[in-house]
């Protein structure tokens, strides 16, 4: 079985209009992939920048997969939320990016988007907070049914991911 190590960190997020952000992250793989070590999803701490507008999480990611096929190459997906001083959480953006497929260290910048509702909902969000959210989280990383959505841009999630591959040449895959 070929093995893939994904080791790195979610550095932080920039470009969001809200401060005090946290991120729920997860990794989605195809059916042929098996997670040998590591946690498949997690949540970062809430970070309030004191200087500048970039929220830093430095959240470590360490995953070890074994796979029999290339289909379903891992995808990292994110939900960035903001928390206000009362403890209420509001969605700031959804985003996903594929894990790189060449070995080495990669700097990734993942753009995010959030669903816009009707003009009433947008007005309510500006005054009271809240706003529409996705019912099914898999829309974040799959293209099906996206045509129904009307969205606005959020900020960018920054990651540094290192990739180690093993035994791919045995299956005829060059890396």
């Amino acid at each position: 079985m070929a093995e893939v190590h994904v080791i790195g960190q979610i550095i932080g997020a920039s470009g969001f209009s809200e401060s005090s952000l946290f991120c729920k992250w997860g990794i989605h793989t195809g059916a042929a992939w098996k997670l040998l070590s590591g946690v498949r999803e997690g949540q970062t701490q809430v970070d309030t920048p004191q200087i500048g507008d970039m929220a830093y999480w430095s959240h470590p990611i360490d995953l070890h997969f074994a796979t029999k096929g290339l289909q379903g190459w891992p995808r990292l997906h994110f939900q960035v939320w903001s928390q206000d001083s009362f403890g209420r959480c509001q969605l700031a953006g959804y985003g996903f990016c594929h894990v790189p497929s060449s070995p080495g260290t990669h700097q990734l910048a993942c753009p995010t988007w959030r669903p816009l509702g009707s003009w009433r909902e947008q007005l309510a969000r500006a005054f009271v907070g809240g706003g529409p959210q996705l019912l099914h989280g898999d829309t974040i990383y799959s293209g099906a049914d996206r045509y129904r959505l009307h969205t606005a841009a959020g900020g960018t999630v920054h990651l540094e991911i290192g990739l180690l591959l093993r035994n791919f040449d045995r299956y005829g895959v060059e890396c």
Partner: protein
Amino acid sequence: MATASPSVFLLMVNGQVESAQFPEYDDLYCKYCFVYGQDWAPTAGLEEGISQITSKSQDVRQALVWNFPIDVTFKSTNPYGWPQIVLSVYGPDVFGNDVVRGYGAVHVPFSPGRHKRTIPMFVPESTSKLQKFTSWFMGRRPEYTDPKVVAQGEGREDENAEAEIPRSTWVSLCPSPAWLMLPFCPQ
């Protein structure tokens, strides 16, 4: 076909905690330690250290320089649990107590060669305003009992509010090419 026994590889880390930029604080020292998985073990060198106390330079850079050496070798059979270096920076507050000014963590680089890493630092913050005031007043700020928590992914959602202060601690980590032997192909 690879041999049935797991192959052991070594990772040698040479470098230094070079300097930091903390615009608001002075007279700081830092502590480093390594966090690694179960398949890893240090074979040589020190895996923890405390630096000297440094003051800001008088020139325009306002740099806090430690130039604190890091020299450790790990051995392992599995890249899972790749070591992370955890840095904690401490300094005096206005009353003279030693308080934490920032925590940060980063993975040791994966490829041989010379690397420079800037690590953002953050401090835990209380959620209640009264607690923030009393902790400032008494000099007993929220602190981690074990700084190694910073290198772990689980349990962070319970940290409700983090005041982040984007500092840069320059860490140059240069594994010496003769010693980094990996059975995997990183490049």
